[in-house]
């Protein structure tokens, strides 16, 4: 427990001092706030409909009918996109700069290190999720469902990011590996808003389920909540197994 606390404190201080990382936790709720307060979906649709005569009215009618909630869209993008490179980058950096070797030599177990780092990301992501909930004005049960969905998505991203961090030799390779995966998980749900085939294909991913749960809260769709949460926790289970395989094979070695 002492080691977890030490790693948590170290990582929290380090993350706060890291503007590149900090901005990822701030930019998504900030964008959601700006777009909700100063742009809004109606204004966006007015601008987009300007192009309707050139592309086809039907497309834009469908788009208008399915215009996503900007807050939940940004929240889904945050959970899917921002965290995987962040966690992978932290672990890869500590490996590359041999800081991790000194921690382990001082008696920190690799599991304690991973729990410490993961806890910081979970903690900061919970604050970011609260910011989304505030901007989206979610109250009562809606708030609880939204936070449950966000924290489940965040957990999945942390586990996936940790697995990438373990197999990466350094920060550069971690970013190269994490970014394409994060882009699919982050942008996929947004594309799914406009295409049913994409939506069906992405249904197995946790980031898409965050959007489905968000639609349940904001639009009132009839998708059973338990199904979305079950898919998300199945994702976490699969990713945890993947993590365990990677960890057993590669370990958290630095040499």
């Amino acid at each position, binding site marked *: 427990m002492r080691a977890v606390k030490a790693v948590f404190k170290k990582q929290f201080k380090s993350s706060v001092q890291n503007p590149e990382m900090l901005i990822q936790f701030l930019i998504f709720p900030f964008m959601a706030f700006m777009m909700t307060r100063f742009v809004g979906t109606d204004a966006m649709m007015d601008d987009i409909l300007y192009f309707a005569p050139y592309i086809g009215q039907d497309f834009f009618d469908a788009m208008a009918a399915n215009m996503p909630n900007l807050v939940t869209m940004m929240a889904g993008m945050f959970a899917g996109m921002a965290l995987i490179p962040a966690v992978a980058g932290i672990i890869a950096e500590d490996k590359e700069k*041999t800081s991790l070797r*000194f921690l382990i030599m*001082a008696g*920190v177990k690799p599991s304690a290190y991973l729990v410490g780092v993961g806890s910081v990301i979970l903690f900061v992501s919970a604050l970011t999720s609260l910011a989304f909930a505030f901007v989206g004005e979610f109250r009562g049960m809606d708030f609880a469902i939204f936070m449950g969905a966000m924290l489940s998505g965040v957990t999945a991203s942390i586990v996936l990011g940790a697995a990438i961090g373990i197999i990466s030799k350094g920060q550069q390779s971690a970013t190269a590996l994490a970014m394409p995966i994060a882009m699919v998980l982050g942008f996929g749900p947004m594309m799914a808003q406009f295409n049913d085939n994409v939506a069906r294909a992405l249904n197995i991913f946790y980031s898409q389920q965050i959007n489905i749960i968000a639609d349940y809260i904001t639009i009132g769709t009839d998708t059973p909540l338990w199904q979305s949460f079950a898919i998300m926790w199945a994702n976490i289970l699969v990713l945890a197994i993947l993590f365990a395989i990677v960890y057993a094979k590669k370990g958290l070695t630095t040499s």
Partner: protein
Amino acid sequence: MISASMKNVSKSFGANHVLKDVSFETHNGEIFGMLGPSGAGKTTIINILTKQLEVDSGEAYTSVGSNEIGLMLEHDGLFNRLSCLDNLIVFEDIYGIPRSRTLEALEKVGLTDAKKTVVEKLSKGMRQRLVLARAVLHAPKVLFLDEPTSALDPMTARGIHELIRELRDAGSTVFLTTHNMEEATHLCDRVVLLHKGTIIEQGAPEEICQRHNSVKTMMDLESVFVKLTGGGLE
């Protein structure tokens, strides 16, 4: 009492035979020097003795557990975004030692005034001193120092030498690698000369010099510099 030893140890990385039949032992409360040029296998020996590497054959032994070992390696492993003090606090928390000990370690290496300075803004010499403070924070019984004064100015190197002697006098075993013969001659109680993974000579510096009809000490540039400046670590 033996604090670390190797018996007929060999180690290869692919076709590269880094250590060949290496045997030596270090005793409690001595400064033990491992001398040799770059690539001689010095760092590999430290990595084996600190259990970061397995031997291919032979036996390697360290009398203490990893939490009683102090480490100063080629790559410093400092947390660049944290201050000097915060870097040490990470290990203070892990070892469960009081803050006074951390501040004392910073004072010993002359970094009290820089305790709030972020590590990425430190000079090479200051980083080395901080790494040494981290290595001695928990009063380790065995201290492994890999090229502790390489690329340092003479004044800083002299300060680190003094600290190493203090640690030896307090009962710690100091195992250091260097390619600086003068440093080893002045500092070490016993040395091993390593060449291409093989030990070619070992013993007290005086004995080795006598054996080879050489003179043990002479006024070196470092001593002249320190004598002229009267400098210590700071």
